[in-house]
């Protein structure tokens, strides 16, 4: 079948993209316990840079194409999935993985939220194979970061906060004003405000440089993911299963919603990638404040060690192939 063949070829192409290979190199080095390491301040800056670039490029493109109905549609699907998915994920994590309430809720928040780098890899993949998508998808990405965190707090309810503690963390700040979200949304607005004129000045910075920064960052992600997995002997088969099956189910649901609302194949692919992706920066930060007793030794290895590589290598081409099958 033509579509599947094409999908196979596309998957192979994805596998051989430099960024994916640098991820594999990092994973190998981490697994072999090499002392290779990207210094942490540089890794943090690379993450900020990726968000700045994604936001800015998205804003410039969104301005060029005008505020379309598609933005509202995609944003609506994203918000709905980000908020509702955690409830289903929570039930599945309790039933299948037998996690305690707090850890299940925190893990659900991770899977409802999104991964910026998975999104970046997804959009690079679409660019490489010449599939168009809306610049506003960067805004959808930003929209999907936080609802799942709120959902997790609703799930655990009042039980989360320990009455004994005099410490009242300013949770809304951690959730709504986390650096990543602020930079992503801020850069989107700056891109939308300055448009082509701004892009003229920053073309090189957010364009060709992006590829290299992504390679370096994925090298680091490979190192971190491999070490995370090595340090997580308690990761049970049921958790690994969830970390692979759940993203595919989420992506499927997102694709059906995208098809029903008439989004393009590119937009549908990206919204599936977002639904499938799991957070490993914003959600852990929020959970450490809000649900300190949830076990980070469960949600981080699942999200960072299993789901992230799966989406990067298998998921992205798979969801795109499915989008073409459904909507092509």
């Amino acid at each position, binding site marked *: 079948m033509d579509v599947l063949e094409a999908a196979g070829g596309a998957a192979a192409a994805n596998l051989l993209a430099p960024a994916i290979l640098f991820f594999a190199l990092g994973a190998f080095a981490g697994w072999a316990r090499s002392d290779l390491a990207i210094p942490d*301040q540089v890794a943090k800056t690379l993450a900020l840079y990726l968000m700045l670039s994604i936001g800015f490029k998205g804003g410039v493109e969104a301005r060029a194409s005008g505020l379309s109905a598609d933005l509202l549609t995609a944003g609506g699907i994203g918000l709905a999935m980000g908020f509702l998915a955690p409830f289903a994920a929570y039930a599945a994590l309790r039933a299948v993985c037998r996690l305690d309430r707090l850890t299940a809720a925190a893990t659900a928040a991770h899977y409802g939220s999104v991964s910026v780098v998975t999104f970046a890899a997804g959009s690079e993949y679409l660019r490489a194979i010449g599939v168009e998508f809306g610049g506003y998808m960067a805004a959808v990405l930003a929209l999907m970061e936080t609802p799942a965190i709120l959902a997790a707090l609703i799930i655990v309810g009042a039980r989360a906060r320990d009455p004994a503690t005099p410490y009242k963390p300013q949770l809304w700040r951690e959730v709504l004003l986390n650096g990543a979200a602020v930079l992503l949304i801020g850069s989107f607005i700056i891109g939308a405000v300055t448009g082509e004129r701004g892009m003229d000045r920053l073309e090189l910075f957010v364009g060709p440089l992006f590829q290299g920064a992504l390679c370096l960052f994925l090298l680091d992600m490979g190192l971190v993911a491999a070490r995370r997995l090595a340090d997580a002997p308690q990761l049970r088969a049921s958790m690994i299963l969830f970390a692979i099956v759940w993203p595919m189910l989420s992506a499927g649901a997102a694709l059906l919603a995208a098809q029903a609302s008439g989004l393009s194949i590119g937009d549908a692919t990206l919204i599936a990638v977002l639904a499938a992706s799991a957070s490993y920066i914003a959600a852990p930060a929020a959970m450490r404040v809000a649900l300190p*007793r949830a076990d980070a030794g469960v949600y981080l290895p699942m999200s960072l060690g299993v789901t992230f590589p799966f989406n990067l290598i298998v998921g992205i081409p798979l969801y795109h192939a499915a989008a073409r099958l459904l909507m092509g």
Partner: protein
Amino acid sequence: MKAVTSHKRTKLEIFVEQHALERIEAMLGEAGFSGWSVFAGVEGSGAHGAWRQTGVGESAAYLVIAIGAETSAQTALAWLSDYFKSYPGIVASSEVTVLRDDRF
């Protein structure tokens, strides 16, 4: 060499996660400490597992060193003893000798 007068004070060494720094520093001020210094760890281990500062997805412990009066330290320890019921971290206190007692 002229004689240097010195004085006994209590030193707290508090290991906590980054998100707690702001609140804990405010608490130290309220408890009567007139100064403190914060250092960032690179890796570590504890009841909540091992960590390494990587720039991606990690907790990372910070060390807050605060030198002050014994009474201030007691106030801070009472607060911390509650705080540590929910959140990761530990505190150690010990006696040190300082110059310029007016400053503590």
